[in-house]
């Protein structure tokens, strides 16, 4: 009898444990950045190139929050903009002319996958050996993320950029004009 009741108790504890743990793990999983609708895994892009990226920006989480705080006094508008973002990812690659067609083909397939995942094409420019694509993903009438692909032969000229969060494109354009665009190391 005692053995039976102990076994029942163990089962109750087991059910209680998983009953509480599983929902918590699901909530945790949903809050991960990779599950955000505006997130794009740039790891897939890295496989198209033989060489490592020449430019790599990865700002997210606490670092992004600290950057927003750091710019609060000097540039309140930038701070507000960053406060709405969850991550900024950039990968820049050197591209030889001979590689252009291959990478452009990969990018087109990638763009199709983005469209299937609910991303909208905002910009699609093909010009003199250059290819520029811009996509946004909406979530409840707000922009959840932006993805930019610029494919152009040259050093650092092929760039893949993903911004996760509620973006105001006009604000980005306005703020971006304030900052000079040199090579990142020159800043």
């Amino acid at each position, binding site marked *: 009898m005692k053995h039976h009741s102990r076994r029942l*108790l*163990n089962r109750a*504890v087991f059910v*209680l*444990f998983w009953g*509480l*743990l599983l929902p*918590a*793990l699901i*909530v*945790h999983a949903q809050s*991960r950045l990779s599950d955000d609708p505006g997130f794009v895994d740039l790891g897939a892009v890295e496989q198209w190139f033989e060489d490592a990226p020449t430019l790599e*920006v990865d*700002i997210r*989480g*606490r*670092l*992004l929050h*600290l*950057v927003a705080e*750091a*710019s609060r006094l000097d540039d309140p508008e*930038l701070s507000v903009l*960053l406060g709405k973002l969850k991550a*900024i990812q*950039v990968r820049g690659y050197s591209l030889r002319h001979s590689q252009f067609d291959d990478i452009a083909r990969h990018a087109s397939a990638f763009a199709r996958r983005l469209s299937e995942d609910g991303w909208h094409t905002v*910009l699609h*420019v093909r*010009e003199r050996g250059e290819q*520029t694509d*811009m996509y946004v993903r909406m979530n409840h009438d707000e922009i959840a993320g932006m993805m*930019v692909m*610029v494919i152009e032969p040259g050093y650092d000229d092929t*760039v893949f*950029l993903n*911004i996760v969060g509620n973006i105001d*494109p006009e604000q*980005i*354009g306005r*703020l*971006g*004009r304030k*900052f*000079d*665009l040199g090579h*990142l190391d020159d*800043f």
Partner: protein
Amino acid sequence: MNLPDPSSDAMASAAWMEARIEAYLDDDLPAEERAHFERRLSTETWADQLALAEQIRAGLHRLPAPLCPAPVTQAAIRTARRETWADWRGRLTTIWRPALAMTVLLIMVLSAALFGGRATPNPPNDMAVQRALTEVKWTLAYLSQVGRETGVSVRRDVLDPYFTPPPSRYPEPKKSQ
């Protein structure tokens, strides 16, 4: 039901009545016994007995309540507390201890699951933050430039087919041989 036998002797009947006077006053008698008791009250001298019992009860209620000596009260409270704690300890051992352990474990796991992934072992230093700020500015500047350049490209694509260059006023110079 325990009613007296009508054929039994008066002594047994009186004993039955005496045993139930207090219960009758407390209104604790079953309905049938109560009815029998009340029938006997009207036919015998038990009404006087009942009145006497009521007087005794009222007199007892008027007596001052005796106070329990302080040492006895304290000893009783100590004993009660000890027994309560022993009872709780017993419950903890058999049922609550595993549940309590699981609850603590759950809190730890939930805390780790919800907040563990987000915590950074070493907070970014000022240099890292400044570097990140620079990267943010560069990214925004880059996006702005892409917007401007592609805007120019789109305008050119759209306008070029409809754009006729003005005729030159002067003939082109002849190329020198």
